[in-house]
């Protein structure tokens, strides 16, 4: 059936045959452009399979193109003028068959010219703007066509981590975690997409004076040296908000939580000092400075299990303390407290803590070209390199970060922003811009006009010695983002701390004040070095050392009876036991082996 004919598929289902597939597809296209068929229908002719695929289902990614007919785009200068004057709109162009949307499948049939002068006889469509080759995310960046693609992906990741003015109503929001840059700036070099998305209304970075230079070995690759005076003036300074929330939960049996300052008899009472900052209602007041361990919301919960009846009658139930405390290692000021109700008609408290995060050693910054760096040294202004005009860079970027990553966009931005700062204007860095070739020369001439080197190089003087550097140093302005990876939120140390109940080993992770894992490979390293005492220190002394009583007669594990002041063997009831120092995990293993109906007996030998 249908041999030699062309199969036709609608949304992936075979619906019949036609004689000439290509002509059939063309006809559908013609009718679509005339408006007879919906503009949401796409059709593709597959030459190799000799089949036509018509797609009208949802969920296809589609992109608009200008239709080319008779060697010219249908979007004429006349239409362009009308569009500018707002006589017509984009939908008009769609209706008139000037612009159409293609899906991934139909694109395979199209021959698309990037620019009008690239139109040949075979061309079927024309890109609206060559910059559309990059997506929205890449187009927000500047001079993206000069960078390697990998850097764009990295850059996109950095941009979403950047701090800035993330929302205008930040003051009435209770985000779990939020950062707010003190003095956000719009970039001197921006792009069409940046402006159209109104990103300048909520910027996320600052224009920093950057010199590509080393500094006494402190800025190795991907390390930054920052000007301390610039930080003091507010460079990179931001506020960090964290919201703590809690509600009065109801439990089956009519009991519920209560917000209040817990009584000293409450189970798990944290001590009088911890609750000292709470007001009468058990909730902290605004603008109270708080530190680690302070209670923000005092809450008591009913006991987890119902109290058993004793011979004295019903014992008064001891409530549990279930207060919200400030996270380990954090401090700040209570920014705002909100009291409201949940949909379940229970009381809900949200307390927002604010703290100022001044850039410090270990904080992360990145430009819009995937060039990231960690602050390695903060240098006083007088020790930083300076130019003949007395300009002192905010940031020193290591030269190694440029050649290997090939981010030419970063360098072009450097001189463009420098020229823009001198001329007092913004410059456009949209991808594949029409005057792309002349752009860099233009920045050079602007720089020359203001008495600077057209390549952005400047003679710098060492702030420490006052001597001029032998080489000229590439200096300019780059838009840098401060990223939310900050040491103050990550730094953690432990010498003593909580242990796990099951294994008696130290806990894991920052919120639990945990230790760092000494894993199997680390263990092997110590064995390989023959460092037996260090290994014992790691695996036993600093971990789960336990004194266990072992019965000399039967070899089973016993316990110490503090009432009678004698050790007792659990198996034979004898008192002839020896105290042995072993790891608690081993005792746990013995217990588990016992649960398998295997009795391990330990025979002791005196040394």
């Amino acid at each position: 059936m249908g041999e030699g004919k062309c199969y036709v598929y609608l949304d992936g289902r075979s619906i019949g045959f036609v004689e000439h597939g290509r002509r059939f597809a063309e006809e559908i296209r013609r009718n679509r452009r005339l408006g007879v068929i919906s503009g949401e229908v796409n059709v593709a002719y597959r030459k190799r399979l000799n089949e036509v695929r018509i797609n009208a289902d949802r969920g296809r990614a589609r992109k608009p193109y200008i239709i080319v007919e008779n060697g010219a785009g249908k979007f004429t200068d006349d239409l362009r003028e009308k569009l500018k004057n707002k006589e017509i709109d984009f939908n008009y162009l769609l209706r008139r068959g000037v612009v159409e949307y293609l899906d991934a499948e139909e694109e395979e049939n199209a021959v698309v010219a990037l620019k009008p002068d690239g139109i040949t006889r075979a061309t079927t469509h024309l890109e609206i703007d060559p910059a559309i080759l990059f997506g929205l995310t890449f187009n927000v960046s500047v001079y993206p066509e000069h960078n390697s693609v990998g850097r764009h992906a990295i850059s996109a990741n950095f941009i979403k981590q950047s701090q800035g003015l993330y929302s205008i109503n930040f003051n009435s929001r209770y985000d779990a975690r939020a950062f707010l840059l003190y003095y956000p700036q719009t970039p001197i070099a921006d792009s069409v997409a940046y402006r159209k998305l109104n990103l300048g209304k909520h910027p996320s970075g600052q224009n920093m004076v950057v010199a590509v230079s080393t500094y006494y070995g402190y800025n190795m690759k991907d390390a930054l040296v920052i000007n301390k005076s610039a930080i003091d003036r507010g460079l990179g300074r931001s506020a960090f908000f964290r919201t703590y929330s809690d509600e009065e939960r109801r439990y089956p049996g009519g009991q519920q939580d209560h917000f209040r300052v817990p009584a000293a008899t409450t189970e798990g009472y944290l001590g009088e000092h911890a609750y000292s900052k709470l007001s009468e209602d058990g909730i902290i007041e605004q603008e109270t400075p708080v530190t680690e361990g302070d209670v923000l919301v005092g809450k008591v919960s009913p006991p987890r299990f119902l109290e058993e009846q004793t011979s004295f009658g019903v014992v008064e139930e001891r409530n549990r303390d279930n207060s919200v405390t400030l996270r380990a290692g954090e401090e700040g000021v209570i920014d705002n407290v909100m009291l409201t109700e949940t949909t379940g008609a229970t009381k809900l408290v949200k307390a927002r803590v604010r703290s100022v995060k001044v850039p410090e050693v270990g904080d992360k910054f990145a430009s819009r070209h995937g060039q990231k760096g960690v602050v390695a040294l903060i240098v006083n202004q007088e020790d930083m390199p300076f130019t003949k005009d007395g300009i002192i860079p905010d940031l020193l970027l290591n030269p190694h970060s440029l050649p290997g990553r090939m981010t030419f966009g970063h360098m072009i931005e450097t001189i463009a922003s420098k020229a823009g700062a001198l001329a007092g204007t913004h410059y456009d860095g949209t991808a594949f811009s029409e005057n792309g070739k002349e752009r860099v020369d233009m920045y050079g001439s602007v720089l020359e006009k203001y008495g600077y080197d057209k390549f952005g190089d400047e003679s710098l003087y060492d702030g420490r010695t006052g001597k001029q550097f032998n080489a000229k140093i590439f200096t300019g302005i780059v838009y840098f983002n401060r990223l939310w990876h900050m040491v103050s939120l990550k730094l953690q140390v432990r010498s003593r701390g909580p242990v796990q109940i099951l294994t008696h080993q130290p806990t894991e992770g920052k919120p639990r004040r945990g230790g760092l894992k000494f894993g199997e490979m680390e263990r092997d390293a110590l064995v390989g070095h023959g460092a037996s005492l260090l290994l014992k220190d790691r695996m036993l002394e600093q971990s789960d050392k336990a004194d266990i009583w072992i019965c000399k007669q039967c070899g089973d594990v016993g316990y110490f009876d503090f009432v009678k002041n004698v050790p007792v063997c659990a198996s034979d009831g004898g008192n002839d036991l020896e105290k042995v120092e072993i790891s608690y995990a081993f005792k746990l293993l013995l217990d588990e082996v016992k649960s398998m109906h295997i009795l391990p007996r330990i025979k002791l030998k005196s040394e």
Partner: protein
Amino acid sequence: MEEKGSLKVSPGEAVGVVAAQSIGEPGTQMILRSFHAAGISSLITTKGLPRIIEIVDARKRPKFPMMHVVLEDSVAKKYESVRAIWRKIEEVKVSSVLRSFSEDLRSQTMTLELDREKLASYEITAHQVASKLEKREATEVSQDDNIIRVKIKSKDMKSARTAFVHIRNASIIGVAGITKALVQQDEAGVFFITTAGSNIADVMMIDGVDKWHIYSNDIFEVMRVYGIEAARTLIAHELYETMSDEGFTVSFRHPSLVADTMTYTGSIKSIGRHGVAGEKESVFARAAYEETVKHFTNAGVFGEKDMLKGVAENILIGKQIGVGTGMVRLAIKKDELKKVKAKE
């Protein structure tokens, strides 16, 4: 202990762990699958990590067995005589000189038409093929130029059918198992032969082959022919060479130690569950590695004892381990100490 200064390794050095790390760490950087270009003059061998796993797992037969045959000095520089030896090595089967064949199960005869060109390229005659087949039991062979008729004298059709297959796979000349052999020449102009497939015992018997310098990468075959010491040397050498080929320099003593551990019992044992690691004395050490429950239940059933002597057990219970600084003990006897004090 007195000889400390003259020893290559200090007493108490954790040589096993160091060897494991020294081989294991470069192993993480090795390519998982190395592709070999299909060439005429090169033979395929397993390389890189797969080969190391092959050796360490003590596989009965390498995926690509290979031999390196050195020839006696008297013939090694004469191409013609080397070629004669080569012809004796590479195995030629009936199927590789066949042009066509037909089987008749009713009369139990098989007609083989030999390809003249192929015969010529292997420098054998149809007569040679016929006489080789004649040596088979219960077969009658008649030859007419390049047509050979073979009649099977068997009772049933089934055995005739299997016999037909065997005839096609029958070897005419060469050593069994050597699928391909290549004559190669080194810089000094000395010829040698490399082979795909390994059969040391038979190749050894060929005149002109240097019996003392046959190299094979088949560890188990080397053990059968030359003994366990040779196998041990081969394991160490193969491990070392595999790593050097990939550009990793490893001190020879590490692969050497691995080879020692694998062979010290007199047979080749793999590293891992079914070999060295699974035969550890300590219950805890075995349970810590793999199949924990199995080892504990067996220990329970058979009442095994763990003397807590090894490293893994002592880390588990939290005792000082018996390597490095942990192996030295104070050796003064209490009575001796009293004597010293008395003197003072």
